[in-house]
């Protein structure tokens, strides 16, 4: 295996390949930073350009776009509160709060470092233990996904000051997700005969509207003179204290991300949510979360990057794409005349190991690219907001259009922008809405798939060992807050 990896590095270190890996991560960085366009869309748009290349080189470059996009997505999440992908929602929560306090540079730096450490760790896992990990991923199926999604949605209740308000936002998100067709049988539901609604409401216009556009509207409203966010140079860098806070968050986030990433049904968004919640659960200062907790940013970014890499494990060993972007990578393999599937590692060893080696290098490139650039990007916020605001609106709408090529998406962005602004005015937190929207189809279809698998018996949630553990966690997260409230009452009485 070491031999194979060394050979992989020999391939990756060829000057031509080195250049294309760099090009890939650079493109990923840029595409990821455009709101609306995530790495998957970027890879699809640039796929035709790789046709002239050797298959290995093309795959290395496309994979570079894939994980480079994870680094790039951080930029918009932190700077303008627009998560380009579902996995960026958690980063936006604390990252943008940090940016408002003038600490955008620190948020971007820790995101880059966290992504780097978790990315390298995940690549090492891909290299060393792909086959056993893949079969572990297969142990997760509909019942486990349902419980994971339920866990996530219940937990959104804790993402704000008042649980009732957060849960209400979550219910609103779930309700929005009902629109379109029933995810399992395709029965039209709540689309009121609008053909545009048949496809349901996608994450991208909601995130762009509810976070990005609403944020701009609220800032425009505040006062005649819009103050730029103060960014002092000394706040740009990470301090020793920051690092001490984040070390273990990065490790935990990376491990959680890897395991969620290898499940073919759950993705980087579930990974970043779970690791963020874990951090807050074990933090000594849970009250800082949501108000610019640097360890929240670190954990979420570490988790989504390692999940992005982990999604390659089912793809390489089973031919099952674990995420939208690994599906595009799979298509690229086919277009370059390589047959993906369980025999890939045996038949195309040179390509697989070259790819793995290239991911080590690509992550190093991204760290080198991002660390010095973080303060520079953060300095973008020194542009007077008056000029920034129309720019954010315009680029968000173009990005939304580019993602689907439909004006319907643009209209949805505007509508959700208004909704998001109203939610801010009425003090309803926005993150639970967006997270619930992402988790809803997973939750609904996996519940129904579970009951089809068990031919109607609910015992399936107890009989499967992993499901049983998750069920306990779900019950605990439902009961714990009630117990806490009762105890508080008792104390008041006593």
């Amino acid at each position, binding site marked *: 295996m070491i031999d194979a990896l060394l050979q992989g590095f020999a391939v990756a270190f060829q000057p031509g390949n080195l250049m294309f890996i760099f090009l890939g991560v650079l493109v990923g960085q840029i595409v990821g930073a455009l709101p609306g366009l995530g790495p*998957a*869309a970027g*890879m*699809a748009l640039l*796929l*035709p350009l790789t*046709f002239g290349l050797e298959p290995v080189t093309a795959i290395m470059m496309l994979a570079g776009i894939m994980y480079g996009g994870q680094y790039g997505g951080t930029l918009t999440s932190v700077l303008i509160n627009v998560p380009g992908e579902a996995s960026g929602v958690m980063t936006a929560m604390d990252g943008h709060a940090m940016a408002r306090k003038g600490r955008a540079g620190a948020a971007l730096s820790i995101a880059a470092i966290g992504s780097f450490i978790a990315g390298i760790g995940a690549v090492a896992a891909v290299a060393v233990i792909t086959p056993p990990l893949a079969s572990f*991923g*297969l*142990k*997760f*199926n*509909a019942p486990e996904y349902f419980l994971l999604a339920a866990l996530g949605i219940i937990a959104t209740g804790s993402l704000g000051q008042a649980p009732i308000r957060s849960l209400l936002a979550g219910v609103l998100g779930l309700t929005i997700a009902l629109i*379109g*067709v029933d*995810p*399992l*049988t*395709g029965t*039209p539901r709540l689309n009121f005969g609008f*053909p545009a609604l*048949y*496809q*349901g409401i*996608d994450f991208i216009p909601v995130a762009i509207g509810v976070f990005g556009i609403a944020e701009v509207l609220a800032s425009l409203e505040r006062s005649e003179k819009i103050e730029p966010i103060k960014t002092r140079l000394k706040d740009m860098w990470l301090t020793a204290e920051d690092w001490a806070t984040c070390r273990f968050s990065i490790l935990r986030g990376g491990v959680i991300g890897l395991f969620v990433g290898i499940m*073919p*049904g759950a993705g980087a968004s579930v990974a970043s949510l779970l690791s963020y919640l874990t951090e807050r659960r074990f933090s000594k200062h849970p009250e800082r979360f949501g108000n610019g907790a640097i360890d929240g940013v670190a954990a979420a970014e570490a988790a989504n990057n390692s999940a992005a890499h982990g999604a390659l494990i*089912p793809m390489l060993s*089973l*031919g*099952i*794409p674990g995420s*939208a972007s690994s*599906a*595009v*990578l*799979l*298509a690229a393999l*086919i*277009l370059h*005349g390589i*047959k993906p*599937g*369980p*025999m890939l590692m045996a038949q195309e060893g040179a390509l697989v190991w070259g790819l793995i080696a290239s991911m080590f290098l690509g992550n190093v490139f991204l760290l080198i690219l991002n660390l010095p650039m973080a303060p520079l990007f953060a300095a973008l916020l020194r542009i007077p907001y008056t000029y920034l605001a129309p720019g954010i609106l315009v680029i968000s709408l173009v990005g939304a259009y580019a993602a*689907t*090529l*439909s004006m319907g998406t643009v209209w949805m962005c505007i509508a959700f922008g208004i909704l998001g602004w109203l939610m801010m005015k009425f003090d309803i937190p926005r993150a639970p809405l967006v997270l619930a929207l992402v988790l809803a*189809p997973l939750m609904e*279809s996996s519940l129904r*798939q579970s009951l*089809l*698998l068990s*031919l109607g018996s609910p015992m399936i949630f107890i009989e499967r060992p992993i499901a049983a553990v998750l069920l306990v966690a779900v019950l605990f997260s439902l009961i714990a807050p009630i117990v806490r409230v009762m105890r508080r009452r008792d104390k008041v009485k006593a």
Partner: protein
Amino acid sequence: MLKLNLGAALVLGLSVAAASAQDMRAPEGPIEFTVGAGAGGTPDVIMRTVAQIMNEEGIVENPIVVQNRSGAGHSNAYNHVLALPGDENTLLTLASPVFTTPIVQGTPSVIDQITPIAGFIQTELMLLTTPDSAWTGLQDMVAAATAAPGTVRVAGGASGGNDHVATGLIETAAGITLTYIPHESGGAARATFLGGNVELHFATLSEGMEQITAGTAKPLAILSAARRTEPGVADIPTAQEQGVDVVYTQFWGVGGPPNLDPAVAAWWADKFRQVTETQRWKDGLAANMQTGNFYALDEAKTYFAAEQETFRTVLTKIGLAK
């Protein structure tokens, strides 16, 4: 408008001169292949391959862009093309959702409105079971499903999609009831099958052979009219041989917007035929164990109409048609 009529008149004049040859006229400017699947889906891969061969082998000089207008069971894509009557620079990729989505949603048939150009690639399917299953052939499965109706489970793609239709055909032919478990994608369905959660799963021949070679699946039948000839696959009997009268293949094709000039349609049909005659295309078919029966224009129209009837019958039977 004037220019267009003039062109048509010109072509008409020429055709009178060369009575036997079909009128052909090349479209001008860049071409969009509209694909209703996301990047990486089979229709996407097929159209990207076609575009690549057309441009690189000099069959078509116009730059071609494959545009994924995915979502809503391909209806984003076909609605886009239906809204461009007469447009010469856009082609719609025909995959089964283009046929089934209107049936399921109760909207007017798409295939009756567009201009059929060609059907040019088909994939046969095989039915797989888990490697440790006691079943050795299709009849064992039929016996199990007859003894306990509904207990044999199939993991497949979206509701009303190819796997669902194939399941429906088998249920009808064998007189059994299966439990169909739809998934958001073919990959997700495969994960469910490989995790050992269900008994049955449909795969294309090349995917299926990969699984069989890796020891993660066992074949029950192929759903073709005749056995394949490749070593390994040749051992797998057809469903018909085993007394279940089902023949079902997945197919893909292209069509133009409504009222496309017949001369342009004929030109495209000719270009697609040229693609299917290249060595690169044939190598691709062989590698993926696909078949390349070619139907153009009126033939394609008849072929698509027949397929639409199959879909309508099966979807009505499984209770999805509106």
